[in-house]
């Protein structure tokens, strides 16, 4: 194995993780807003959100990434041109986070909506009866009560996000898979580099699983264990 390329892979991994973390957070924001819109919004909001989640979940991520990547950069540049600024190059990192976050948002909307619906309704009614304003209710009642139901789904989404970053290689963003391809292409040691990248991805997944099970146990504290509840 040629020396020096290991560092390239690690830089790629770092970029992948940056995008995955950013996209997951953006997805969580969109998802929380989307879930509340779907549950408590007006009829138009609900229908638009239904279109959003259905379309995003029915079209391949690769196609969405291309569409949003071109449409997003085009749109920003046209807005800038209309306001009298010159065109800018959108950084791959920002574009990647935006695109994957938009996709993740559709999935997390459904996860969070399901989790909120799983909260015993009396808890929310009680909060309302005490005259809690919506923001306080969200912070003190809805989010803590929905977490145990939402975390398995959201954890799954995080794992999907880490793997979906690989798709950005097709748009030419330098992340782990593209780094691997370049390293393999130059050194001709294809198998070694692809295996190494696989090990890196797997390590991220396995490490995430350890953290996730901790977080899950924390979010379920004080609740009956899954086996007893059945």
């Amino acid at each position: 194995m040629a020396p020096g390329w290991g560092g390239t892979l690690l830089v790629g991994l770092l970029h992948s993780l940056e995008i995955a973390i950013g996209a997951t957070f953006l997805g969580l924001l969109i998802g929380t807003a989307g879930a509340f819109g779907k549950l408590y919004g007006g009829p138009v909001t609900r229908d638009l959100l239904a279109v959003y989640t259905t379309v995003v979940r029915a079209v391949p991520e690769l196609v969405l990434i291309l569409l949003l990547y071109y449409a997003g950069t085009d749109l920003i540049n046209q807005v800038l041109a209309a306001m009298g600024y010159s065109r800018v190059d959108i950084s791959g990192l920002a574009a990647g986070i935006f695109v994957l976050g938009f996709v993740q948002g559709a999935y997390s909307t459904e996860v969070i909506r399901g989790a909120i619906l799983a909260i015993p309704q009396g808890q929310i009614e009680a909060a309302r009866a005490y005259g809690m304003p919506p923001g306080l209710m969200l912070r003190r009642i809805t989010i803590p009560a929905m977490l145990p139901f939402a975390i398995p789904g959201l954890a799954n989404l995080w794992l999907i996000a880490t793997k979906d970053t690989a798709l950005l290689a097709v748009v030419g963003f330098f992340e782990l898979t593209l780094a691997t391809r370049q390293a393999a292409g130059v050194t001709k040691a294809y198998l070694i580099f692809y295996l190494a990248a696989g090990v890196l991805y797997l390590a991220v997944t396995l490490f995430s699983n350890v953290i996730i099970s901790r977080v899950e146990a924390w979010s379920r504290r004080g609740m009956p264990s899954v086996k007893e509840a059945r």
Partner: protein
Amino acid sequence: MSEATAINVAARASLWLQPHRIVLILIALALVFCAVFFLRWDWLPQYWQMGLMGIWRALWILAVTCALGFALAVPLGLAQAGGPFWFAVPAKVFCTIIRGTPLLLQLWLLYYGLGSIFPQYPWIRESWMWPYLRQAWPYAVVALTFSFAGYEGEVMRGAFAGVPKGQLEAARAFGMSRWKIFRRIWLPQAFYRALPTLTGETVLQLKSTPLVATISVIDIFAVSSKVRQDTYLTYEPLLLLALIYMTITGILVLIFSRIEARIPVKIG
């Protein structure tokens, strides 16, 4: 009878067609109208045949990999649910590796990685497999099959484990052989349990098929990329592509909901 159903349909339609929906549908139609008339579609006559070939190839890959993947998922699930540990551990490791790495990487590992190893061995080059190993599609089929098997194997594990013990004990009490228990009792009930997730997995698999375009298999995604390169159009081919995938997804969901409706509801 028919009158009652007609009234029922009309009531449901009026419930669904609320005023704001009509406005939204009109806006959507206006958008479609703009897309049809203001975007360029003059490349369609030249490429539609290629596009149909691409759709056919994507569907063919989808069907083959789902069927093979499911056939592989059954032993994987069975090994994890009730097998001795020297079956269970390799199956678990396989599922973990497949689910823990991106499909794109697996695809490239097989195509570029293994594909670069094979030609070094003369006996492979002289064997009957060589004409196939030189093409891209066998690698695509293998990678997508493994991916489907990995995800569905985990589902099947849960499905096999979820079949009530009493059913299997009753079958054993009737003197059924192990193979017969598996064929008549265990597998059908596990399959019914796994069916709802099978819809989702198949749609996910459909959404994975465009990845094969990255290893030079000409599916519908590759056709749209070619159109984009040839005509320098960005949005038109991609929008049409998204529409095609949405249509296929809709048809898949419809077919599966038909199948699901035929299955007895209350299980276990």
